[in-house]
């Protein structure tokens, strides 16, 4: 009897309907802004400024979306953003996992010094290195190039640390067995460790994807010609063009943010686990 009582008491609130009430109300706060963004994006300018507001447009104005593409080269922004995101993600996965393998699995002189040096990078906020990074880009003649968007984003102390911690949890016997079979370190890394590290690799990939797709400050700094801008910078440009034409601005916001939202809806579990593993927000 005592047992039953304690089990019942375990949950913090007994009956579930007040909890549902709070949660439904809370959910509205999170869903309504998104719905309103989508609904406004298919209204006419006149409909968007009606008081009291109308919820649905009389006729959906899909032309707002084509207006966005007409005002600014959004197709180019998409291509640049996709290339930047893919480049940084693939690059980071490769470079971080290679270094993480060496840190986790090989003993070599200077390992601790190099590891501490890498950890110290974790403590440096990104804006502290922004100015010199920009000057490097300028000296290389990389302003308004794809390299500028990708290359400085390839190297991550955080990603390396994350993967190294995960590699340490994998049993050593696997390496030893592969070594006895005559495998070299690259072979062990590629065919033993990487396949086992999938959860950590997926978490890092999602983290880098989100960070790159949404990145504003760096693309803003290294691009000023429209043919190399990204979606986030494009939104700022759109706002400059259509200061208060909110239906068109909302269409732009939908266009810029839907790919990550769609990915999240499809791979929710991975996204949420990824955030729980990486422990930080983009």
């Amino acid at each position, binding site marked *: 009897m005592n047992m039953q009582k304690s089990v019942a*008491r375990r949950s913090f609130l007994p009956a579930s309907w007040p909890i549902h009430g709070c*949660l439904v109300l809370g959910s509205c706060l999170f869903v*309504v*802004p998104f719905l309103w963004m989508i609904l406004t994006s298919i209204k006419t300018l006149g409909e968007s400024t009606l008081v009291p507001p109308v919820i649905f447009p009389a006729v959906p104005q899909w032309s707002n979306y084509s207006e966005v593409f007409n005002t600014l080269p959004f197709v180019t922004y998409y291509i640049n953003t996709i290339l930047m995101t893919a480049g940084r993600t693939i690059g980071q996965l490769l470079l971080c996992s290679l270094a993480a393998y060496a840190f986790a699995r*090989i003993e070599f002189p200077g390992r601790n010094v190099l590891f501490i040096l890498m950890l110290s990078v974790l403590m440096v906020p990104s804006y502290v290195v922004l*100015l010199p990074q920009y000057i490097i880009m300028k000296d290389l003649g990389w302003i308004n190039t794809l390299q500028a968007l990708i290359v400085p984003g390839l190297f991550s102390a955080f990603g390396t640390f994350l993967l190294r911690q995960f590699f340490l949890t994998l049993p050593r016997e696997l390496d030893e067995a592969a070594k006895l079979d005559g495998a*070299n370190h690259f072979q062990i890394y590629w065919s033993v460790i990487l396949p086992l590290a999938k959860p950590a690799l997926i978490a890092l990939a999602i983290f880098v994807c989100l960070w790159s797709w949404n990145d504003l400050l760096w693309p803003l700094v290294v691009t000023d010609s429209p043919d190399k801008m990204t979606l986030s910078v494009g*939104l700022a440009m759109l706002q400059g063009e259509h200061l208060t034409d909110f239906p068109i601005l*909302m269409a732009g916001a939908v266009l810029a943010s839907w790919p990550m939202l769609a990915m999240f809806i499809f791979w*929710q579990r991975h996204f949420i686990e990824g955030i729980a593993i990486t422990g930080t927000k983009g």
Partner: protein
Amino acid sequence: MKAADVELSTRHSEAVVNRKHKRVSRVMWRDFIWAYLMIAPLMLGLLIFYIWPVFQTFYFSFTTWGDFGTYQWSGLNNYQQLLHDPDLLGALTNTLIYTVLAVPGSIAVSIVVAVLLNQKIRGVGLYRTLFFLPAVTMPAAIAMVWKWLYNGDYGLINYILSLVHIHGPRWISDPHLALYSLILVAIWGSIGSNMVLFLAGLQSISSVYYEAAALDGANRFQTFFRITLPLLSPTIFFQTVVSMISAFQMFDLLFLMFEGSSNLVVNSTQTVVYLFYENAFQLNNKGYAAAIAVLLFVIILGVTIVQFQLQKRWVHYA
């Protein structure tokens, strides 16, 4: 005869050991080369793009920049200017208000949401998904949507307020209010990811504690304050440190929400990183910008160290 045999075999085994030793060291050398090869690309990149730039920023903070990227040593000039810059004082105050309200605000709400979601109720997955939506949305887009919701004349928020006969304020064009409106959006946007981390923290609390509390006749609030919160404190500590570091660097939301606003609004909302951006890339005061960056770095470092010192007082590691 026998002694000679023994001697021979000893010599033989010594030779084996020697050969083995040589082989081991050759294998070790191969290991070292592999390790350096695997680490080199990352380390070179970190050196060029992160480690060396820290020293460069520090150096630049003692320089004054002219046109065409030329600069000269100007000693402590920039730092003296920092002391007398009203813009910097404003930006520091804004950043501080932002951090002090947004971080604890978001963490408190996230804990409540996480506790609510940590029940055996239906639809937890759906709620979690919905709360998480802002965490995957581009901050620039979030800023735009909220700018629209906050709109004084046609915004949804003021319309809803008018239904209950409240005349809504000018959320983002009133200089006294703009920063607080921004803080609300920042809290809204960060609940999702914080909540996920707190949920993970809650799920790692052993049910033994709750059973013991129930046996002792603790009520819900006692259970929450005496058990849940202390056992969650390592997660709370970690999230506070990480969120504070990123709050001190607030830029994206602010940039999209207030770019092109009146001077009064810009002054009442601009953060330190915004001031840094303005000086470095719009006004070409790169030396001064570097000094701002160094100052903020020192502040962040100081706050983080203080937090680590204070954690002994309130963080319980089980």
